[in-house]
């Protein structure tokens, strides 16, 4: 029976492709053993049944047979049969899904209870809607199930399948993409898969198009978030979504990018603070998170909380203001942040300290961020420590060493005082032949000796270099010199500036606390460290190696003698020679723990001003520099390390600084005759070779820059500063994203202005950059042609204006007191007295000076819209405006052609220009101060401000030529242009200040807006700018040729002068009329 059956199978199987039989044969032994006979038969039947479904369904059977042996390992025989049945039903019903079902089963069932088998099959088959695409999706689902189940429970899988199904109604492609993304995503999600799936489901309902983006961004953002917080994050994301925050995927990506910048351990804390924001104002949440890294840079977490709380308070009264607050785009936000933070930013104090330094030094000292100096690559390398190169004090970008703001500020102050002290007290003015007051001069004798030996005839570029040339161990001498000199400067400052000395001492003792333990150093280094600590004012005994105790005492003695207020830099040099002499004999070897002895040097301090070189030192000093002077420390030199830098002193490079200064001087006199010995190429080379100030950092491995390159950079730094090109061209536009933060004016001729955000009721700090340029020059024939074409009017206007000029003296009568008695009034008074009525006592007159004192700025809107043609048919015949003078005519003709088109119509801007020319003519007649500017621009970082005539510039042909080139450009951002003009006018000394705004339409610019409120935003900013002008005593007047102008001008110009021209042709006349009226 059995056999018969078997042959039956074989017979049937033989009708199928050989693959089936092969697979069957392979699996058969295993299955026969596992299943009962009946079950085995059912198995074979199922296979045959499936294979007979269609021409190609044998393939399914092959898969069934193939996976069956594996399945036997996963399932009990009963469950196996159930699996088989489900599979058979599925395969028969939807042949397309069969293969996927069977081949995915091993993986899927690995993580699935047998009872879910049929549900699983249902999930898959539900996705199949009879189309090819849905089939593919369904197959994908089966194939992915195994992997998905690694992450999900079956219930979650079911929800996920539901999601896929719903999504598929919108798009199969999207659905299957999400499926494959989900495979990568689920491992990242953490525990709360259900949450994630329901968020996905939610998204399908409200915005299925975003799903892919959401998945993509989740995939990118989740790894950035602390795993324990991911669930929370997604929850918050869902709440954000349900509360209607637009563009969710992007938002979560941005949030996660911000979070990435924060320590993962703090994510929870941050989300704690941020979460309540969603209830208050959902879109505040992402903004808060986005800003938090910046805020956390300045303040600690508890302060972040109070910052957030302030924002929340603001949310209740002024949501827009609060949004700006969270974006750190309002002055209030900045200020609050500044108030709560303990750190002090360089940018916040640079103005204050710069003036402070200038006051102290009496020189043109600039302040800059240390990084700038490092970037110049001229020898300085530490970007976070203070330093100076003789003309500029470089300070670190931010200081947050202490918990109190005042202390951090004090640090800045002490640091800059020290740096300025180097300049004020002459560290860089070392003169080799200068006298030292407190030591005998050894330099010159030594100099003679060394130059004899070396025989070098290249003279040193600087005095200080000459000095260091005296030493064999240049590094050591530089170290000694730096320490002693810094100590001297410190002493001098403390003496000179009594007020700061307390703070100074506290900074010094803080620096002392950071010094390395002397006992861990080698002998020579220990003695140098001793020197450093003395220079920092250490009074406690310091350990020194026993055997060098006398040397140590001598060092202390010399150093103490030098580090006081009476010494000069030359004394430092002498002290350096002496200490060097002592140290060169000290072997830089390790010292045993027991060989240290504390050196109590307190009693030495009361020695007074009597100083003589310690005994024994004299002789060795004499021997120094002589031919083959014994150099015992020679072999150990390799191991010598310079002492650790004192942080508040920073880098000290006297050699480089003096060289730079000298080079600068040389640069200044390059054209003229320069008598002082100039620095030659050889000198520079010599310098680069010898100096240790450069090789120091090369050893530290800062990039591959060579000394030569540094020298080159130095030359660039001092001499060849290319003047910024004044080419007034309408240069390329740099685009900065509107959502960015504040801007800095880093180029010359650029100015930064705040912008008013009416919604927030606050300024956006440093929001716009105004770039001031000269208008390019065209032909001056244009000017002439206009004057000619208006011929009569020009004369008439000129005459009218000349009448405006007042007499300088005007007699004023009937005064109580004055220059003289007015006879008429006196007679009247006498008559009054005689007739008995009360006399009028005002009978004096005096001359009063009445002078016209007017400054006016014309702001010309040169936005693109001024290119609009003036709609009139009577086009002006070009010929009629042509100049009669043949030369001018040719020029005029050429310029016409140059413009490319033969315009026969007039544009708004043409009329603006004509009006301007008439006005110039008129104003020149009365001699008022005036400036003419055009403005346009594109975006807040590119407000172009074209100077046509600067207020302090005289009228010239240049101006004429510039007028020719006024042409329509970009957009209209009025606010910054007005503010810039205001600042120009404010600096002028005039009684009447007038700002004439001539525009064609409303202010508008890219991003001159907040979403949906573009018009109001621009209008309000413009209004605010005009208000600012008024508060500075400037009288603004707007003249517009926009026919719809009334709409916005009314809100903008309440109680301010404005006028809308109905007929644009009236512009020139009207402008003149208005000018006359306004200025008298």
């Amino acid at each position, binding site marked *: 029976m059995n056999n018969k059956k078997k042959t039956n199978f074989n017979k049937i199987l033989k009708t199928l492709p050989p693959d089936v039989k092969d697979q069957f044969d392979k699996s058969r032994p295993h299955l026969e053993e596992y299943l009962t006979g009946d079950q085995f038969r059912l198995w074979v039947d199922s296979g045959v049944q499936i294979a007979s479904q269609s021409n190609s369904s044998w393939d399914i059977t092959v898969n069934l047979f193939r996976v069956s042996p594996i399945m036997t390992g996963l399932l009990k025989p009963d469950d196996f049969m159930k699996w088989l049945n489900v599979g058979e039903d599925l395969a028969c019903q939807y042949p397309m899904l069969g293969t996927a079902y069977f081949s995915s089963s091993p993986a899927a069932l690995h993580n699935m209870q047998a009872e879910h088998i049929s549900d699983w099959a249902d999930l898959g088959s539900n996705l199949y809607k009879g189309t090819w695409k849905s089939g593919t999706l369904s197959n994908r689902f089966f194939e992915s199930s195994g992997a998905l189940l690694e992450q999900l429970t079956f219930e979650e899988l079911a929800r996920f399948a539901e999601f896929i199904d719903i999504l598929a109604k919108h798009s199969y492609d999207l659905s299957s993409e999400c499926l494959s993304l989900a495979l990568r995503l689920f491992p990242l999600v953490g525990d709360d898969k259900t949450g994630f799936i329901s968020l996905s489901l939610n998204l399908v309902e409200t915005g299925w198009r975003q799903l892919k983006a959401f998945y993509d961004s989740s995939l990118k953002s989740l790894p950035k978030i602390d795993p324990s917080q991911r669930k929370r994050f997604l929850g918050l994301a869902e709440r954000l979504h349900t509360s209607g925050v637009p563009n969710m995927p992007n938002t979560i990506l941005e949030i996660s990018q911000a979070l990435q910048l924060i320590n993962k351990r703090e994510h929870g804390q941050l989300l704690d603070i941020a979460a309540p924001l969603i209830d208050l104002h959902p879109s505040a949440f992402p903004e808060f998170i986005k800003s938090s890294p910046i805020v956390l840079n300045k303040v600690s977490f508890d302060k972040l909380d109070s910052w957030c709380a302030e924002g929340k308070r603001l949310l209740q009264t002024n949501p827009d203001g609060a949004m700006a607050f969270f974006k750190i785009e309002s002055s209030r936000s900045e200020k609050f942040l500044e108030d709560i933070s303990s750190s002090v930013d360089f940018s916040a104090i640079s*103005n*204050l*300290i*710069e*003036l*402070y330094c*200038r*006051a*102290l*030094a*009496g*020189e043109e000292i600039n302040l800059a961020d240390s990084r700038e100096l490092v970037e110049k690559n001229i020898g300085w390398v530490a970007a976070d420590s203070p330093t100076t190169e003789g003309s500029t004090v470089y300070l670190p970008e931010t200081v947050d060493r202490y918990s109190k703001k005042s202390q951090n500020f004090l640090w800045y*102050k002490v640091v800059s*005082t020290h740096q300025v002290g180097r300049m004020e007290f002459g560290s860089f003015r070392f003169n080799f032949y200068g006298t030292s007051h407190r030591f005998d001069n050894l330099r010159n004798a030594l100099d003679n000796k060394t130059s004899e030996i070396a025989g070098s005839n290249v003279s040193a570029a600087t005095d200080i270099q000459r000095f260091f040339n005296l030493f064999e161990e240049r590094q050591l001498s530089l170290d000694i010199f730096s320490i002693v000199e810094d100590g001297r400067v410190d002493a001098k400052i403390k003496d*000179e*500036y*009594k*007020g*700061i*000395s*307390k703070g100074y001492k506290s900074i010094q003792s803080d620096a002392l606390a950071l010094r390395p333990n002397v006992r861990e150093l080698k002998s020579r280094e220990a003695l140098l460290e001793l020197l450093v600590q003395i220079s920092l004012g250490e009074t406690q005994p310091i350990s020194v190696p026993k055997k060098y105790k006398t040397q140590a005492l001598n060092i202390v003695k010399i150093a103490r003698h030098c580090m006081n207020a009476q010494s000069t830099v030359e004394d430092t040099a002498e002290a350096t020679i002496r200490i060097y002499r002592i140290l060169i004999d000290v072997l830089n070897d390790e010292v045993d723990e027991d060989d240290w002895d504390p050196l109590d040097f307190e009693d030495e301090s009361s020695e007074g001003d009597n100083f003589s070189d310690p005994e024994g030192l004299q002789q060795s000093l004499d021997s120094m520099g002589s031919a083959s002077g014994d150099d015992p420390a020679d072999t150990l030199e390799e191991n010598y390390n310079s002492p650790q830098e004192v942080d508040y002193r920073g880098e000290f490079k006297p050699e480089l600084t003096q060289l730079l200064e000298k080079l600068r001087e040389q640069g200044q006199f390059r054209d003229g005759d320069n008598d002082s010995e100039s620095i030659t190429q050889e000198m520079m080379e010599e310098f680069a070779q010898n100096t240790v100030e450069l090789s120091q950092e090369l050893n530290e491995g800062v990039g591959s820059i060579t000394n030569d390159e540094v020298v080159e950079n130095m030359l660039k730094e001092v001499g060849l500063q290319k003047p910024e090109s004044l080419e007034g061209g309408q240069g390329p536009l740099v685009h900065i994203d509107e959502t960015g933060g504040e801007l800095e004016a880093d180029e010359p001729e650029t100015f930064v202005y705040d912008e008013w955000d009416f919604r927030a009721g606050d300024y956006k700090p440093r929001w716009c950059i105004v770039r001031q340029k000269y208008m390019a020059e065209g032909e001056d024939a244009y000017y002439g042609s206009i004057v000619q074409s208006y011929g009569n009017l020009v004369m008439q206007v000129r005459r009218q204006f000349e009448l405006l000029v007042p007499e300088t003296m005007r007699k004023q009568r009937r005064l109580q007191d004055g*220059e*003289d*008695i007015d006879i008429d009034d*006196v007679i009247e008074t*006498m008559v009054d*007295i005689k007739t008995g009525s009360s006399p009028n006592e005002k*009978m004096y007159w*005096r*001359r009063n*000076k009445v002078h016209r004192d007017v400054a006016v700025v014309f702001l010309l809107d040169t936005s693109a819209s001024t290119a609009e043609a003036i709609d009139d048919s009577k086009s002006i015949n070009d010929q009629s405006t042509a100049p009669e003078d043949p030369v001018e005519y040719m020029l005029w003709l050429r310029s016409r052609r140059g413009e490319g088109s033969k315009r026969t119509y007039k544009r708004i801007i043409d009329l603006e220009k004509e009006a301007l020319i008439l006005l110039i003519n008129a104003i020149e007649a009365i001699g008022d101060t005036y400036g003419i500017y055009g403005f346009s621009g594109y975006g807040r970082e590119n407000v172009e401000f074209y100077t046509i005539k600067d207020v302090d510039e005289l009228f010239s042909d240049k101006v004429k030529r510039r007028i020719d080139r006024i042409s329509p450009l970009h957009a209209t951002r009025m606010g910054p242009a007005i503010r810039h003009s205001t600042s120009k006018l404010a600096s002028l*000394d005039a009684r009447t200040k007038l700002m004439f705004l001539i525009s064609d339409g409303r202010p508008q610019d890219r991003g001159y807006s907040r979403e949906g409120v573009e018009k109001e935003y621009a209008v309000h900013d413009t209004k605010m700018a005009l208000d600012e002008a008024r508060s500075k005593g400037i009288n603004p007047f707007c003249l517009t040729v926009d026919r719809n102008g009334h709409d916005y001008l009314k809100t903008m110009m309440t109680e301010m002068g404005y006028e809308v021209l109905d007929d644009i042709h009236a512009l020139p006349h009207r402008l003149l009329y208005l000018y006359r009226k306004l200025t008298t």
Partner: protein
Amino acid sequence: MATKTSNSTKSLYQSYIIEEYHLKQEPYYVPVGDEIQLFEAAYAQRIPVIFKGPTGVGKTRFVEYMSWKLGVNLTKVKKGKKSENATQQDNLPLVTIACHEDLTASDLVGRYLLEGDQTVWIDGPLTRAVKVGGICYLDEVVEARKDTTVLIHPLTDHRRMLPVEKRGELLEAADGFLLVLSYNPGYQSALKDLKHSTRQRFVSIEFNPPPREIEAEIVSHEAKIDIDIAMQLAQLGEKIRNLREHGLGEGASTRLLIYAGKLIAAGIEPRRACQVAVNWSVTDDQSLQNSIEEVTASIFE
């Protein structure tokens, strides 16, 4: 300007007739350079003098000092040789006129006043100085109206005449008369500069803030404080003057430092004294004030 009332009342207040005012005690003045010799020489030759320099460096004090010093010499000479001119003052009178925008020529020369039903001529301060032969000191002369130059010119060349137009007179200056002007080239705008035709009738003595040690000595004397504090004040003054090119119209004058010293002497804490007497007086600019505040804090404990 000195008081204009001509009738002196003795009881309630001290009042001087303009031309009779002269210094009775030696004013405190510490010479910085050779200005004393220069002025003496110029006076001896009756060459008019211009004092140039910022406010509060001692221009007015110097002219007072010189009038006293020259007056003392005058007295000596007279007593020794001839005493015929009894009406002549023993001392050299000093007529100081602070010029202002509305100061006109008639303010200087004089005018008719109505008294009852008749007019009375009243001499202006310049006329009085010319008549009596004293030093006439026109402070901040560029402020005055241009018509004053009409008077200055004939007085300052060989003529030494004052035209009194309204009375049809031409007054010859008395022997001791000397015109001294002061002006501050720093803060006036170019519009208000002295004309060359005027400038070149004078010799110019420049005044600058004294060096730290001298200034400290002055401050210490004037404010009656000890020299250490005075040194610090002088140091502060020096540092603030360094800021002159950076938005500060003019540096802290010695006068301000003395005020600060006086406040300190009266028991005000030094930093506070400097704040009100120096810092807030030299500038209204907030950022400059802050910087000066820091400088003050660095100097004073």
